[in-house]
């Protein structure tokens, strides 16, 4: 099992969700994050003082999947999250982490079938 963490453009969320449900990945956890990547952030000015905010609003998806679902999930995210065909700086990243175990609180089921 893997835990897939993806950081995407907020405006792409709907499309990514759509792409995911096509590969039958219907369960995920989402949170608002701030991103700081190669993408040039603006330098904000507050009261005449510069604040360097390369921090941009992003959305993070956390998706626990069984191994066979990793590739479909990744490509679904890429497909849904890329701006245009060539993509654009700021489109984000996907991280794949090993997942030792998964428990469903409701039933107490463990492992793959709990995902």
């Amino acid at each position, binding site marked *: 099992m893997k835990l897939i963490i993806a950081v995407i453009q907020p*405006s792409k969320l709907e499309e990514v969700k759509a792409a995911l449900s096509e590969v039958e990945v219907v369960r995920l956890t989402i949170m608002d994050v701030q991103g700081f990547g190669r993408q040039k952030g*603006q330098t904000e000015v*507050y009261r005449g003082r510069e604040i360097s*905010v390369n921090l941009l*609003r992003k959305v993070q998806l956390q998706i626990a999947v069984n191994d066979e679902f990793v590739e479909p999930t990744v490509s679904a995210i890429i497909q849904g999250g890329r701006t245009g065909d060539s993509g654009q700086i700021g489109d984000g990243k996907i991280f794949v982490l090993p997942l030792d175990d998964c428990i469903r609180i409701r039933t107490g089921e463990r492992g793959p079938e709990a995902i």
Partner: protein
Amino acid sequence: MLCTLQKQGWLMLLMATCLSLTATTALPNVTFAQEEEAAAEEAPAEEAAEEAAEEEAEPIDYADLRWEMGWTINTLVMFICAVLVIFMQAGFAMLEVGLNTSKNTVNILFKNVMDLSVGVLLYLFVGWGIMYSGTDSPYFGYDGPWVSRDAQMADDGSWEAAPNDADGSPYASSGADFLFQVAFAATAATIVSGAVAGRMQFKAYLVYSAVLTGLIYPISGFWKWGGGFLDQQGFQDFAGSVVVHAVGGFAGLAGAIVLGPRLGRYVNGKSVPIPGHNIAFAALGVFILWVGWYGFNPGSQLTYDGFVNAEATTYIALTTTISAAAGAVAAMVFAWVLFGKPDVTMALNGALAGLVAITANCDRVSQPESLIIGLIGGVLVVIGIMLLDKMQIDDPVGAWPVHGLCGVWGGLATGIFGDLPDGIESQGDFFFVQLKATVIICVWAFVTMFILFAVLKAAGILRVSEAEEQQGLDISEHGMQAYGG
């Protein structure tokens, strides 16, 4: 001066203001004289119809206590009403902020602050002089900047400037009048900011705002309230369903069309709603607007003294209240039936719809009629929102459905339900007059603003880049986030 304004926008603005300082404040007095003449010339033509004109013939006894108390009350109450209308700016700001995404909050707030600030200056220098130029021309006139003073007494107790009067009845000070009028201008301007939210360059907005408050609104305003041709044809628009709200609504529509929808609002033909980020702000805004409307409509009675005027003022407040309530209920029920859930944003828009619709006729409809007008307004706004959505026109806050569509409804409702004004024989004629004038004003606002926005687009300063829009105007335009730690 104004075409340059269109081109270089706000920088001009400041210079203009400074330059104008040279303008002698004597001007207004000349003006005052002009008005007198104008009135005088018109008088014979209308003798029969208006006793008012006659009275004006007789010299006014300013020593008369009744007169002085009336003038005092009119001036002070108009001032208070002006304050209420100015408060509406806060309502618009909260409403528009609440119904848009958080990444454009600073931008919207800024636009609203500037609608009022730029609006005051432009209206002071240009708009006021156009709208109440007292010219004989039924179409256009201008008599300079600044507000004339009145009720100025010389040391010997004689009048340097006589108290302002309307058709020989105690009126109010020009200062109160200007405040009241400029608040209306700012209202017309700020309506648009909601329709074009989330994608328009700030610079371009400032230019738009200056042009609307300085030129477009005052010109059509003159046609009716300045005594222009629409007024002469008997067109009735008590507090501006058409003159103010429809102008704003159709200007907004033009903006929304020329700009095109926000990114992701319509993906391959499918409508993807972009919900507001703070409904509490939106509701607060509507409550404030509702309250402010008690300055907007009753205040438009303009003279409040004496049994009849005072009663009329509060009767207007009554019909206004009934229509607002009816609009909110109707919109809620209608949307509930249509979509299966009661949608508060619809109810809020419904209340505004009722308020806009009654604005033109609050003085001349019965209570049951005000109820009907509000109910229909509440239904219309829901339909209008769906209509825009079908046509894939992106109006984030529903400025057109509320102010444009219901503004038109208000204008027409006046012809359908309203008591006949002097000189109009049948309800049919009345309706036709209303229809014609309403169309003229809406077309005027839509076309002129369409051109302006198109020019700005051609100049490439209308819309922000894709990247900037995605990032949000707060950061891309103002380098600031509205919310933080």
